[in-house]
């Protein structure tokens, strides 16, 4: 596996019942059920986590790190996503939650929410100087970037080439707080499955400064248990502008261009990109697109309901806005936040590199599709009759994998049997 095919979403074969729920929700039609188990097509998966969310048997999970991964480093720095703050009642302050992470074994903590404020500024600066036509698309959501690579390659040149808040926070740790040290491990406390992937195969950077990604749900209980006894210290530096990145609209508000569209939830994100590709969006400067419902608070590795978490984050924003922001823990002056390299298209949906071959396959696909019942029942293991027709054209499925086509064939065979039964050998036929 490499950057194009690695994905963090995996299947627990022992839990999967082959029920076909997940295949319908996958935005890139990357899942098929084969031999009673779901299987993910590596090159198509964008790590959005929809299948983790919808699986009724909890058979889908992200390859995130356990809390025990901390032991690999003498000095371990937690960089929690702002979403973490929405998992707990507001009676637990941000200072207390960050203190709780120290109590769990981290040596230091730097808020991704604080780095997000720097990223917002870098985004606004980049857009102000950008040549060419917008609307510019935020690259903060790694699943959205992958969605563009697989489904909307024509929009890749609209991505804002600024590092994500996670990457920015990790670089601050390694380049500013502990420069030149090799014993520092940076761990992202993540609501997001896709962040696991980009910590290994980063978008826009050659190497990620993140050493591990731990799911919020994997620290939740331990953190919840230590919170009441934590001694509060002034650990939080993020303002309301940074904390708001946990939910939809937070990033747009922080970037500050009023001609923005904020969209969350993968289906609506796709709708906005379709409209953009059709040239329908005019007078829009910036698109904040987040794959999860209500934004990162809806991430598959969270515990709390996205809308409850968002309400809590908003309550925290209101409270923090009244306080004077603490001075930065370290200077980020001159830190490079722009991408080192672009991201390229992933032609995972292409039928064949040879266009003529692809055309022949597509004609077969259309022909197969017109012979199918169009029920999208999923019994064949593909998400729709159209996807099944494509599988047949690609040689990855047989037409008789369709239960209706199989029945049709059985009926024909039965008719032939009856016809044959009526025939008599000439020597016996007395009529």
């Amino acid at each position, binding site marked *: 596996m490499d950057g194009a095919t690695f994905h963090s979403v995996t299947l627990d074969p022992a839990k999967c019942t082959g029920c076909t729920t997940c295949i319908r929700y996958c935005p890139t039609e990357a899942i098929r059920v084969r031999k009673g188990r779901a299987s993910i097509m590596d090159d198509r998966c964008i790590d959005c986590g929809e299948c983790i969310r919808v699986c009724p048997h909890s058979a889908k999970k992200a390859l995130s790190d356990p809390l025990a991964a901390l032991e690999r480093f003498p000095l371990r720095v937690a960089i929690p996503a702002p979403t973490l703050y929405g998992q707990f009642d507001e009676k637990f302050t941000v200072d207390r939650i960050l203190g709780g992470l120290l109590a769990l074994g981290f040596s230091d903590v730097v808020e991704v929410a604080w780095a997000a404020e720097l990223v917002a500024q870098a985004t606004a600066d980049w857009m102000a100087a950008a040549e060419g036509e917008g609307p510019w698309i935020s690259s903060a959501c790694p699943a959205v970037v992958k969605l563009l690579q697989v*489904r909307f*390659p*024509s929009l*890749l040149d609209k991505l804002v080439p600024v590092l994500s808040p996670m990457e920015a926070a990790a670089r601050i740790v390694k380049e500013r707080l502990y420069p030149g040290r090799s014993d520092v491990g940076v761990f992202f406390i993540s609501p997001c499955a896709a962040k696991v992937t980009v910590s290994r195969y980063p978008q826009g950077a050659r190497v990620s400064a993140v050493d591990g990604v731990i799911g919020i749900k994997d620290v939740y209980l331990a953190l919840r248990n230590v919170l009441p006894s934590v001694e509060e210290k002034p650990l939080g530096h993020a303002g309301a502008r940074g904390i708001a990145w946990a939910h939809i609209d937070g990033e747009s508000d922080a970037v500050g261009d009023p001609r923005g569209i904020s969209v969350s939830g993968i289906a609506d994100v796709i709708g906005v990109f*379709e409209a953009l*590709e*059709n*040239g*329908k969006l005019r007078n829009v400067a910036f698109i904040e697109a987040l794959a999860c419902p209500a934004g990162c608070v809806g991430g598959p590795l969270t515990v709390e309901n996205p809308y409850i978490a968002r309400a809590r984050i908003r309550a925290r924003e209101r409270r923090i806005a009244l306080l004077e922001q603490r001075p930065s823990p370290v200077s980020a002056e001159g830190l490079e936040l722009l991408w080192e390299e672009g991201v390229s*298209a992933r*032609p995972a*949906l*292409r*039928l*064949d*590199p040879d*266009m*003529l071959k*692809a*055309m022949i396959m*597509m*004609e077969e696909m*259309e022909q197969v599709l017109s012979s199918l019942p169009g029920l999208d029942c999923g019994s064949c293991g593909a998400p729709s009759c159209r996807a099944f027709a*494509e599988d047949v054209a690609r040689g990855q499925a047989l037409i008789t994998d369709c239960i209706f086509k199989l029945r049709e064939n059985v009926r024909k065979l039965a008719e032939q049997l009856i016809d044959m039964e009526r025939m008599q050998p000439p020597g016996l036929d007395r009529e």
Partner: protein
Amino acid sequence: MKLHYEVPGDDLSLAGRASTEVKRALGRLGIDPVEIKRVAVAMYEAEINMVIHAGGGTAEADISPERVTVVLADHGPGIADLDLAMQEGYSTAPESVREMGFGAGMGLPNIKRNADDLHIDTALGLGTTVTIVIKLKTG
């Protein structure tokens, strides 16, 4: 190869389905994304026009390695003054449609900008056939 679509004329929320399907088909064929976008913009505009002004019709995409030819045919009222219709900002769309963000008078000029070849055959009271050609460098 040819792809054929019926474009219903009674529901603006469904308008754009045919162009989305064509776009996905071109993606499956591995056509250059920039060229796909030109087809998408031109065809989408024409499809919307057909729904707003002509009560729907049919859309056909003929794809070869050299070009994509999209033909959109309707039995609507026809275009009275084609030269005027080609001007940016000119529109006969009713207010109800403009409120939805359509009908800004950019449709035909936008198609022309994205197409390598645009042919409009129109007759008052009989209908309009729009033929859009986009040449492919991939072929």
